């Protein structure tokens, strides 16, 4: 399912000049297919008219014992961990817990001990030394904004959590990625596990993680790792595989051992991709901050959660801090990667000596500033107010910011506002003409017709193997006893994907044609990918007060950026020769776009569709929290009411849906361009 397999998907990648997806010639198989797919859909509609509601998934084909089994598994885990004679595994896990707890607490404490002045100076100077002044300015702006928002301590806690989690992710993910990059078999073996780690919602495994690691930083780190290790593995593997085979051959021919080839050839040449994996791991990690807060991750995640219940403006402010942290970390790591690239720096001996001196001077300066700040009695955390002998100044602009956000929220919540007059009908329209008809169709068709029709569509679009996968996945969903909610979720996922793809292609093509648009879009896309969805979805509930729509909006907003990025890079990657030839024959700009660029970029666009689906599925649980019901609701309940088994079953159904949809949209990519990677 290759989330980020041909290309790092989620989020802000500066350093990641994404590898342009392979663009094979358009195949004739595609033609005539829409008509046949249309035929299948027409048959479904006919069957619906005749047999509506006649055959829901039968109880006799349901394995009801599964949730119960899973519940007892959880109980068993709890017993094992607290047992007197614990098995070696649990001792090991406990050791890891102690280590991770220590890592996070120590770095938090260290950053607080250095005082806010010292921490700020250290961050800015280090980034300045290794990443240049531009990146340092961004970091400075970010740190100052945490201070002014009055969220310094929470930000430091989140930063420490992220640094620890990302370090551990890379320590585990990179070696696995190297193995996967060097061996096709390893790669194939771990891919399903990576897919599962990214699609199964974190809510489903929070409780087992808490049982194994208790609450606190360690548990938060583990959850973050489950989600953020896969991109580290995938991008590393991609980088290693991307090293020219003849280079590797050459080194072997000169008698290099396997390890020498790895360390002297493959790793150095894959440097850019390795650094990109650092960068993407950070992005994925940050998107889990709020969930990590639920099990003791503290920091900004906590502020978001409690803000949601009692102060929506505060939740938005903390969400903004998360975005700022993501952007600053992204730009800083990208700049450091760029500046320290040995292939681009040709240092003389003298230059090297000077560089070392500058580094030393930077470190000395940091130590001096920290000690000075402590001597002058600077506070550990940025204070709420400064006191002078005569007056007290408010040190943050938190109140002003909150008032500002609140007034925007008030406007949104005003049902007489202009914007509400536009958004409410759109919401109702979506429910009435897209979500509800599709749901009713999928749920109320006799199950065997739904199953065979969807498999037939898969056969038509992608071929035999994907069709078999789809069949197996749908039957698995039914057997687990979640047919109805799964079809409900499927209807929402399909509508959301359609919208995300439509928006993604339109905006993506536009951005590909106009670099200015792309530049303007970038911060917006970064924001959409790292801002916790719960934060911005609440305003949407006011704007579109119908249960399933805000969830769909959240999915679209999360998935569209990925589609936009893939489409942009695909269209841009179309060979200039083809474009020039078309122009030479007198094609207008519009004709070049629709007749040449878009058809040639179709594979990239299909990859966008595929990644869009994965991202949409990742948001299903959030949908459950804002009223989408169905599988997302069951997963959320799994944690909140401790219906562990039911939650896991619903998560598995989400995974099965993901695999099915993925195979339908991806197999062609795989059978053509993908295979040669």
């Amino acid at each position, binding site marked *: 399912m290759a989330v980020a397999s041909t290309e790092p998907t989620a989020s802000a990648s500066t350093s990641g000049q994404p590898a342009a997806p392979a663009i094979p010639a358009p195949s004739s198989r595609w033609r005539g297919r829409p008509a046949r797919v249309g035929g299948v859909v027409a048959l479904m509609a006919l069957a619906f008219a005749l047999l509506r509601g006649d055959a829901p998934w039968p109880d006799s084909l349901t394995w009801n014992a599964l949730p119960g089994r899973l519940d007892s598994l959880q109980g068993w885990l*709890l017993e094992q961990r607290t047992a007197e004679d614990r098995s070696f595994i649990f001792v090991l896990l406990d050791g890891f817990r102690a280590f991770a707890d220590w890592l996070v607490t*120590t770095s938090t404490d*260290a950053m607080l001990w250095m005082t806010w002045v010292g921490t700020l100076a250290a961050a800015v100077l280090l980034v300045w030394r290794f990443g240049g002044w531009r990146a340092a300015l961004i970091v400075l702006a970010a740190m100052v904004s945490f201070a002014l928002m009055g969220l310094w301590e929470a930000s430091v806690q989140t930063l420490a959590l992220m640094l620890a989690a990302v370090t551990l992710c890379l320590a585990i993910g990179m070696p696995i990625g190297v193995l996967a990059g060097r061996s096709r078999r390893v790669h194939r073996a771990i891919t399903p596990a990576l897919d599962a780690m990214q699609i199964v919602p974190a809510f489903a495994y929070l409780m087992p993680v808490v049982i194994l690691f208790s609450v606190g930083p360690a548990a938060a780190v583990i959850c973050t790792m489950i989600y953020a290790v896969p991109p580290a593995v995938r991008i590393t593997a991609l980088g290693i595989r991307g090293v020219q085979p003849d280079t590797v051959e050459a080194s072997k021919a000169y008698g290099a051992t396997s390890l020498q080839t790895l360390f002297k050839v493959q790793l150095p040449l894959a440097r850019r991709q390795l650094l990109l994996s650092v960068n993407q791991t950070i992005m994925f990690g940050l998107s889990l901050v709020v969930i990590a807060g*639920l099990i*003791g991750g*503290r920091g900004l995640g906590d502020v978001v*959660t409690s803000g949601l219940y009692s102060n929506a403006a505060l939740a938005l402010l903390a969400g903004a801090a998360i975005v700022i942290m993501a952007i600053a970390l992204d730009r800083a790591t990208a700049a450091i990667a760029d500046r320290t690239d040995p292939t681009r720096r040709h240092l003389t001996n003298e230059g090297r000596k000077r560089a070392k001196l500058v580094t030393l001077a930077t470190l000395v300066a940091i130590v001096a500033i920290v000690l000075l700040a402590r001597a002058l009695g600077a506070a550990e955390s940025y204070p709420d107010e400064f006191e002078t002998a005569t007056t007290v100044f408010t040190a943050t602009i938190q109140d002003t910011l909150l008032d500002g956000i609140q007034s925007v929220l008030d406007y949104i919540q005003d049902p007489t506002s202009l914007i509400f007059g536009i958004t409410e009908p759109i919401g109702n329209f979506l429910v009435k003409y897209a979500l509800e008809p599709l749901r009713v169709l999928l749920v109320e068709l006799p199950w065997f017709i739904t199953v065979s029709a969807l498999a037939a569509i898969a056969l038509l679009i992608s071929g035999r193997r994907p069709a078999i996968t789809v069949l197996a996945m749908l039957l698995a969903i039914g057997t687990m006893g979640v047919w109805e909610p799964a079809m409900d979720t499927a209807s929402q996922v399909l509508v959301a994907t359609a919208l995300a793809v439509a928006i993604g292609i339109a905006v993506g093509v536009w951005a590909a044609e106009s670099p200015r648009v792309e530049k303007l879009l970038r911060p917006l896309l970064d924001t959409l990918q790292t801002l916790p969805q*719960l934060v911005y979805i609440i305003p949407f509930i006011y704007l579109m007060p119908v249960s399933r729509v805000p969830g769909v909006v959240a999915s679209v907003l999360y998935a569209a950026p990925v589609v936009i990025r893939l489409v942009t890079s695909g269209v841009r990657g179309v060979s200039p020769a083809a474009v020039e030839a078309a122009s030479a024959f007198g094609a207008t700009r519009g004709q070049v776009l629709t007749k040449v660029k878009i058809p040639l970029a179709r594979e990239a666009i299909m990859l966008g569709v595929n990644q869009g689906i994965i991202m949409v599925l990742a948001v299903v649980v959030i949908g459950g929290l804002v009223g989408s019901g169905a599988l997302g609701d069951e997963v959320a309940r799994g944690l909140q009411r401790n219906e562990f088994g039911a939650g896991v079953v619903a998560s598995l159904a989400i995974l099965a849906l993901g695999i099915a949809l993925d195979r339908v949209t991806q197999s062609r990519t795989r059978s053509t361009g993908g295979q040669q990677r």
Partner: protein
Amino acid sequence: MRGTFMRGPRRVHGVAALALALALGVGACGEEKEETPAASSDSGAAAEKDCGKVTLNEQAWAGSTANTYIAKAVLEDKLGCEVEVTKIAEIPVFQAMADGKVDAVLEDWQHTDEYAKYIEEAGTVVDGGPLGVEGHIGWFVPKYVMDENPEFATWEGLKGKEDLFKTAESGDQGMFLGGDPGYVQKDKELIKALGLNLKHVTAGAEPAQVARWTQAIKQKKPVLFYWYTPQFYNQQYELAEVKLPERTPDCKDDAKSGGDPEQYKCAYDVTVIEKLFSKKFAESGSPAYDVLKKMELTNEDQDAVAKAIAGDKEDPEEAGAAWVTENADKVEAWLN
């Protein structure tokens, strides 16, 4: 969010941590942490007995923020404890108490499964008795709806008039806005058992559900929804309750256990809000335990502070401390 965690002794902690880090003494950090409570007593106010560090867990809703910060103010100002507030989700916090990572939860809405597992079987969590706040779940409509349709005072009045609550979402039925998936509920079963032509629509987590019905109120539309007291929103919005059938002895409240809808056909029972303590904390001899054990609030106390925090956006620390100052007599009773 104004630097609420760990004020004083962190300095000691931090120095030790950095010294250790500098010395690369990686392993020894566990012990260093143990010393913290002892070191904290000198920074505390007039502590009669060494109180040390107490970790309270704040649940996500505003009522819990209120009672947690009231307790924090009392423990810090009267006993000189160092109070840390965590925000761990409702179910994982049981394991947190079992592991001694959280000392107390002051507002638990009776998680019977977890009580069986952690209190009765494992004995790692201790029931600290009722907080005094009584929870009540029911069906609510805005007051203007009740004024126009006085028959809605009981559920029978809804019969035949379900149309009033129709939305795009509910088709030709009336819409019933369900509660947070994490809360105890049986409304789907109730609707079925009472034979009402209503469609149960999940609105999602509480903030999302609140967004839905407050928006309806702003539009002056009719809306029927799952809601509860004590809740500070009840002071901000005028709501009226639809009376459900009287309770019968065998009537159940939590549809989680499934089965015939008929067995849920009654009003929700009053929920006694419990205080829970980690066993470790209960046996530590900390003076904080005795105070928290005696702590008692009324629904009005809690709502007033919750409204100050969530409605008027006061800082929780200040709102909690203000209540403690104003209610010195009540607090005095917990201290003796």
